[in-house]
């Protein structure tokens, strides 16, 4: 097939499974050894993206050649060999991920700059400014494309990340195609496609976009980065390049108008974030306190109180510096936070710090009461202090026991499955780092199979 989806065959969970199966064969012992020692060799050196990338590319190429010559793959089709290569790439890169992803400060810095810039530009950008014709504008449906792109940080393997980009492009193209049919326009080409991809990227603002692209560029096996995949990846690179160079001219805006837009976006964001800093930073500190001090007393609560009082005091003059006229109220912030959590795919992770959130009454023991009471006191202090700091009256926390219980119950029903899934996944990923013998390796492979199924099925767009 000429224009068949280049990802279709290797996306199937079966191919990954097949790779793991073969690696479990006794005759694959040498391969397993080679893979392990290659991975271990990385821990001896400081990160150097160019050298690391070359080493991975060479290792993958050599191993694929060795597969080809090995009896395990005797009589196998090109496709089977190809999927073995895919499996190997996924395995090796999942192991090396934390070591090579965004491993140098320069990359992380560019990530932050890009994220910040997009955060500003997305506040005021309009489709026309990128030459998107009205017939092709469809902001609601573009949300689907944004979702696909935002999945990029859920995966570790280069190919899986690349598939997120390709799926995003696919959604855009389908929408463009439908729009062109509906409006009797010429079928869409790059003139229509690239501007929408840029717009979608601006709206999605996936964290660490720059590092993700570099990671794919460096660690996706080069021989597989061809044709359609290479084309759409290039579009993503060019979207990134356009965005990081966005200025008044590139949006056909008046210089002053552009600066004003950027300024007010900045004011809005820093207003929100300085408020959010107060809200978000403290709980992290607190959880540190409470784990360090085995028996948190009222005394420690008071020390927290004073530290928060000062941070609250700092907040106000800071907020006054901002250009925005209205300080968002606590409920504004709460709503904003809730909306952000809803958007995140792994929102339940944010609640992991709070062990009682998903607890049922029956799960609790008498020993938990003291702990709970301490948690409650801390929360009340924090809540009152924050309210004070923001200069708004503290809305009372909902107190009715039956009400909170009912609520909690409903939430538990809904979310506990999520949390559990997230936890399981997290543990699995931790496990990947620690394997020392072959028997361990086998069980590791099994766990990973089940882990990999979930995201992969999701990533496949039905034809």
């Amino acid at each position, binding site marked *: *097939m*000429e*224009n*068949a*989806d*280049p990802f279709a065959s290797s996306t199937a969970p079966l191919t990954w499974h097949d790779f793991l199966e073969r690696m479990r064969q006794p005759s694959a012992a040498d391969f397993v050894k080679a893979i392990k020692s290659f991975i271990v060799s990385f821990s001896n050196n400081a990160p150097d993206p160019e050298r690391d990338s070359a080493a991975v590319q060479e290792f993958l190429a050599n191993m694929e050649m060795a597969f080809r010559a090995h009896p395990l793959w005797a009589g196998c089709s*090109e*496709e089977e*060999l*190809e999927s073995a290569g895919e499996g190997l790439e996924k395995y090796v890169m999942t192991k090396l991920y934390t070591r090579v992803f965004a491993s140098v400060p320069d990359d992380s810095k560019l990530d932050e700059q890009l994220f910040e810039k997009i955060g500003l530009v997305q506040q005021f950008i309009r489709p026309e400014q*990128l*030459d998107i014709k009205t017939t092709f504008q469809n902001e609601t449906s573009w949300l689907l494309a944004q979702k696909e792109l935002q999945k990029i940080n859920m995966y570790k393997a280069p190919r899986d990340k690349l598939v997120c980009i*390709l799926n995003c*492009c*696919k959604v*855009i*193209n389908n929408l*463009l*195609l439908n729009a062109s049919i509906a409006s009797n*326009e*010429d*079928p*869409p*080409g*790059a*003139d229509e*496609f*690239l*501007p929408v991809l840029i717009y979608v990227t601006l709206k999605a603002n996936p964290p660490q976009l720059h590092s993700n692209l570099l990671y794919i560029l460096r660690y996706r096996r080069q*021989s597989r980065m061809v*044709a*359609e995949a290479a*084309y*759409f990846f*290039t*579009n993503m*690179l*060019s979207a990134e*390049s*356009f965005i990081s*160079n966005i200025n008044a*001219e*590139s*949006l*056909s805006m008046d210089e002053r108008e552009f600066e004003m837009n950027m300024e007010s976006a900045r004011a809005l964001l820093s207003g929100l974030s300085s408020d959010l800093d107060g809200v978000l930073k403290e709980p992290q500190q607190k959880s540190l306190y409470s784990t360090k001090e085995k028996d948190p007393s009222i005394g420690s609560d008071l020390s927290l109180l004073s530290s928060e009082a000062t941070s609250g005091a700092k907040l106000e003059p800071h907020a006054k510096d901002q250009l925005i006229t209205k300080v968002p109220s606590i409920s504004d912030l709460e709503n904003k936070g809730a909306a952000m959590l809803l958007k995140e795919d792994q929102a339940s992770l944010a609640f992991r710090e709070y062990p009682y959130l998903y607890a049922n009454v029956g799960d609790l023991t008498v020993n938990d009461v003291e702990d709970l009471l301490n948690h409650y006191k801390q929360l009340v202090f924090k809540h009152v202090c924050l309210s004070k700091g923001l200069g708004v009256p503290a809305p009372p926390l909902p107190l009715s026991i039956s009400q909170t219980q009912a609520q909690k119950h409903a939430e538990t029903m809904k979310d506990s499955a999520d949390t559990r899934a997230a936890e399981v996944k997290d543990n699995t990923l931790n496990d990947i780092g620690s394997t020392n013998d072959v028997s361990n390796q086998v069980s590791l492979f099994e766990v990973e199979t089940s882990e990999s199924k979930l995201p992969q099925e999701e990533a496949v767009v039905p*034809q």
Partner: protein
Amino acid sequence: MGCSSSLPDRNSGRLGGLNAENGGAPDAKNLRVKLVLLGDSGVGKSCIVLRFVRGQFDPTSKVTVGASFLSQTIALQDSTTVKFEIWDTAGQERYAALAPLYYRGAAVAVVVYDITSPESFNKAQYWVKELQKHGSPDIVMALVGNKADLHENREVPVQDGIDYAEKNGMFFIETSAKTADNINQLFEEIAKRLPRPSSS
């Protein structure tokens, strides 16, 4: 408008379905070629490609991702085949600086203008200069005057195109994506001009 009007297929010399997508190293008999399309927005770049590629498909068949990337294989008389992987680029002025990302490594560049638009002809000349400066030195370039069916509104004389192409060592042709005129000829001519691996 209208590369969507369907005319009877003229697919002499086309191959359906045949291909060594999977890993087959390109050999002297089966070339795989990256072709980049440059030109102002609205000159019909994607229409040319669709007209070229659609022939072998029934129109309802799936275009997997979109018309901005398509591939098509043609057979030449010497029984070699050429698989074109066609990369479309956004032609709007604000995206001009991104083009090098696309034409890097391309074996062929097709620069398209609209014969009813002198601005698009100027833009085409800009792209030719760009490619001469930054493209790979042995890139095969073609200059294409599209929308030849609109000859009543012609504003760029054929001779201008011929002269400019000749001066710059390019192949020149006028096409109509609407009527399919010269579309296959364009790609066949390009295929003939490709440098061949010396082995065969």
